């Protein structure tokens, strides 16, 4: 029996609708539709394949990577990140640790591994897929970032300091946009990092499928992108600056139940 697919709900990438008042209702409806089937799940599937694949000059998979709970333990590892790693003598978030394992276990070159760190319409990103898979192994578990090691405590304080640090050509700090309640840039709602409910919601959903970018985005990308808008030079992937901020934000969201991939505009 031939029939054009008539009852199919085709998902189209919509630009934000025009009317300001009904905009939020429409975007909410659209987000609910997409949230029920998040394209980010495809990145999770891709990430699992990449994780198990023998790659790099050493032709080894990532299965023995230690994300903080021992080599090969993924369940719950993301929930405990960022944390201190003795073998690198620094605090690392999930992506910094992933890069570390790609270099040390798999023999990837640092710069080469990061060439496609952020995907776009013209290229896919392995890192985004891997990050989605790794994070998803902590789904339903609470964010549980502990400040035990001296460097972990310091990372938190550095992150907090940076969060409020006004800098660069537009006098912005992270707090300029993310420490007030109920504000928005153009039509994009801004979350308030000092509001527990909001920071919980936001941090429990990274990595997230970002509709406007047609790909999954991670915390490293978010921090990179904010820095871009703040007129800062591009920050290095997995660097201390990013890990410090990530530590501060994650600790603020401790207890929030992880649900990735999330969904973003």
């Amino acid at each position: 029996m031939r029939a054009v697919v008539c009852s199919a709900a085709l998902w189209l990438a919509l630009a934000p609708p025009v009317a300001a008042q009904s905009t939020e209702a429409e975007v909410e409806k659209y987000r609910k539709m997409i949230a029920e089937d998040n394209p980010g799940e495809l990145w999770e599937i891709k990430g699992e394949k990449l994780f198990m694949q023998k790659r790099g000059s050493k032709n080894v998979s990532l299965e023995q990577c230690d994300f903080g709970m021992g080599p090969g333990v993924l369940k719950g590892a993301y929930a405990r990140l960022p944390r201190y790693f003795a073998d690198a003598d620094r605090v690392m978030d999930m992506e910094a640790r992933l890069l570390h394992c790609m270099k040390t276990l798999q023999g990837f070159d640092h710069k080469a591994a990061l060439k496609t760190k952020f995907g776009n319409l013209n290229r896919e990103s392995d890192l985004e897929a891997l990050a989605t898979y790794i994070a998803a192994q902590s789904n339903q578990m609470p964010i549980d970032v502990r400040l035990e090691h001296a460097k972990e405590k310091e990372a938190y304080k550095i992150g907090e300091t940076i969060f409020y640090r006004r800098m660069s050509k537009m006098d912005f700090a992270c707090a300029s946009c993310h420490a007030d309640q109920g504000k928005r840039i153009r039509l994009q709602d801004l979350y308030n990092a000092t509001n527990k409910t909001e920071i919980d919601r936001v941090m429990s959903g990274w990595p997230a499928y970002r509709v406007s970018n047609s790909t999954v985005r991670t915390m490293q990308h978010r921090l990179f992108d904010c820095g871009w808008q703040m007129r800062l030079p591009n920050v290095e992937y997995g660097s201390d600056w990013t890990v410090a901020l990530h530590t501060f934000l994650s600790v603020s969201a401790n207890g929030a139940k992880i649900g990735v991939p999330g969904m973003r505009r």
Partner: protein
Amino acid sequence: MADPMKMRATLKGDTAEVRVLMSHPMETGQRKGPDGKVVPVHFIQNVEVKLNGKTVIEGQTSQAVSRNPVFSFRLKGAKAGDKIEVSWLDNKGDKNRTEIAIA
């Protein structure tokens, strides 16, 4: 194509609500790539749904559908254990398929 597809089917009475996530660039042929040249059309043209091996939906889609589309539809007369297969064919001749049994 090795890119994943993901299907979910929930049974409500004798109707299965099915959702399929597909990975596909769905190029419209309007976009310019990084080299400044137009990226050629590349989109899913046909979608076929089979219930227990029998074709129940055959659809033709165009490049107007966006990247990584989600198709959802209802199948009446479905029951637990039924096999649903969804396959697609794109304008370059690439194919992909996935199959689940209704729980």
